[in-house]
């Protein structure tokens, strides 16, 4: 069949098409780019790295750039990308990481000064159980000759000390509005899309500098070749993220069952994790004009704890939604 004719998803989706492939193409995080480029000058001395910062600021992108530049053409073969929020237990460390780290020790005669030739990128490493993180300690050391680890996390405090101490830590800053807008404008120019400044502002307001989310909104809104505020608004409305806002609204309105149904859809159809739901639900609480958001946040924290320690996730989340409905928050707005 016409195998070559099939378009690649990574060519269709702008978020991949415009993902930088070299460190010097990364628009922000100048200090980090400089630091990494310096480290790359002596590849055999490259330390393990730990990238921390909020979502969509370029942590994974930089890790991939680094892999490309260090490993060259075969970077994909020699890079293991794992997302700890999908496989978070010790099994993942033992079966995937350990195996990947040990296979290559046999495959090549190691010279003392040879450069590392395998990279393991552990994304969302803060989602790993501490048991799994502990199991990594030895692997990191045993495979140090051949392998470099790049840990990526949102919250540095969730990474155990022994791993932190084995890595050079880079803290990523938020991407500013100017940087986001400039990048999005460039994309629009390339794609021949007309865009409204207000629409770009709207995107930034919504995503708070999350590049992945920004570019996805832009593309979904660009169907007509023209991106307006209204189209951005429409595009924002379809995401799983905005479902969370709807769920919280319904719950606050004491529409328990409607909010529960939407939640089940979010978890099952969109595949969003329970913990991610609560994480963004917490953001939503502070976006609303509540008299005492801290009270609500405290309740949420309690159920987040129970989610981690309870047997039935659905019972815990439903109980949380019912709590929101009882508080009568609507009549108590500021």
């Amino acid at each position: 069949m016409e195998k070559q004719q099939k378009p690649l998803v990574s060519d269709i989706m702008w978020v991949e098409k415009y993902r930088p492939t070299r460190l010097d193409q990364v628009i922000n995080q100048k200090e980090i780019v400089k630091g990494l480029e310096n480290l790359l000058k002596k590849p055999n001395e490259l330390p393990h790295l730990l990238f921390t910062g909020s979502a969509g600021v370029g942590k994974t992108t930089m890790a991939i750039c680094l892999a490309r530049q260090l490993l060259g053409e075969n970077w994909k073969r020699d890079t293991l990308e794992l997302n700890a929020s999908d496989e978070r237990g010790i099994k993942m460390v033992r079966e995937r990481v350990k195996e990947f780290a040990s296979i290559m020790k046999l495959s090549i005669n190691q010279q003392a000064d040879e450069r590392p030739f395998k990279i393991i990128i552990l994304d969302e490493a803060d989602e790993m159980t501490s048991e799994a993180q502990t199991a990594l300690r030895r692997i990191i050391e045993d495979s140090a000759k051949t392998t470099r680890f790049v840990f990526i996390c949102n919250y540095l405090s969730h990474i155990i000390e022994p791993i932190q101490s084995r890595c050079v830590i880079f803290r990523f800053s938020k991407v500013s509005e100017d940087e986001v807008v400039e990048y999005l404008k460039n994309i629009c120019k390339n794609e021949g899309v007309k865009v409204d400044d207000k629409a770009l502002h709207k995107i930034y307001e919504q995503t708070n500098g999350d590049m992945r989310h920004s570019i996805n909104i832009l593309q979904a809104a660009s169907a007509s070749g023209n991106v307006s505020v209204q189209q951005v608004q429409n595009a924002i409305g379809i995401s799983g993220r905005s479902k969370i806002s709807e769920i919280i609204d319904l719950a606050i309105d004491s529409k328990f069952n409607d909010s529960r149904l939407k939640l089940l859809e979010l978890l099952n159809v969109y595949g969003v994790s329970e913990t991610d739901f609560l994480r963004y639900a917490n953001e939503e609480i502070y976006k609303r004009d509540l008299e005492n958001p801290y009270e609500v946040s405290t309740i949420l924290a309690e159920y987040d704890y129970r989610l981690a320690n309870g047997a039935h996730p659905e019972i815990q989340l439903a109980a949380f939604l019912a709590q929101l409905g009882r508080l009568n928050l609507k009549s108590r707005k500021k």
Partner: protein
Amino acid sequence: MMWTEKYRMKSIDGFFGNEKERHIVIDWLSHWVKGSKPLLMMGPPGTGKTSFVKSLAKYFDYDLVELNASDLRNKSNLEALILPLLINSSLFGKKLMLFLDEIDGISGRDDYGGLSFLAVVLKDADIPIIMASNSKNQKMKDVLKSSKIVTFLPLTPFASYLLIKYILNRESKILDQDTIIKIIRDARGDARGLINGLQMIIEGTIEGYSKIGSEYEIEESISKFFTFENINETKQMLLNSVLQFSTPKFGYSQEERSRDFLNALYNSIVSNHKNISDEKLANLLHCLSEVDLFVNRIYENRNWRLLKYSNDILLTKLFKTSRNLGIKYSQYSIPFPLIGTIFMRGQSLRPLRNALSKQFHTSTSTVGLFCLSYFLQVIKNGKFGVLDFNSNEDDKINEIIVKEKLRA
């Protein structure tokens, strides 16, 4: 004597069911020479594995050395027990056979090194070794590789029927056909369950015996839970109920799900939400969530002895608040047509979500939050044909996309 012991088959030809499998075992033993692979009998409980090995040893005149889950089977223990047998087998005079029962019960933690040691020993044994196991697991893969495996199946209804007839004959009793069929159905091919069920009915010690909860019994228990006036009476009822505490977090079967007490309470409460005030509803679910916490702690720490308090805690938290609310049993918390679409679409989208998570270098949850719907929108907007996901599931994923495009 309990009937399961009384009717444990003692002679090699007295068994019911698994004729072919038993032949394989006999065949293996009669052709056994040094260097033959050891035999692994797989099969659910109550299919006669242990009894058969015992009768086999007797028939072929072997001394049977048996180790089961009650023995500590770590490396040094096994070494101390097995090695002398293997090396000095000829000195014992009589022929020896080693029987390792319940090898799936060899624990990773307490029996450290046990399985890997076994795998080594099995390769070159001087005596016949037979193992039995209810299930396969990852830890056993070396053992599986070096063994001849024979799988015992649950007793067929016909074999079950013959077994019942045999026992009835021996007891000089008769039983109506319907009861026999019920016993066969409830035991689901477990000979032990079959014999227990039969004993309970014949000896009449326990009336209305039931092994597996039927829908009716679950419904009855939940209804009683929400309507009984007296808390002590409710506690007594729960003791005899088929409902159980379990946790879906560690994965559970369809049967466990249907008997899951907390799940049944939850479904019943939320499907009656219309009749319950917001305040009450929040309160009930909060209490349920507390018990849920307690139950999971038990599971996580394997503190099974604490399970006996679960009913008490549940009653303390939930009994008073749930009186007079008219809560009725419901198996599903959502009308089925609705939950059907949610779960079916969720299931069918899964390969797409996984493929996008690889493409976008991010977790599946992030895909759900920030990518999936935008991707589908872009696909709907554009005129793309078949897409390349660089995955071996490409065809399947493209089918999913076509389906999604057709959705309004």
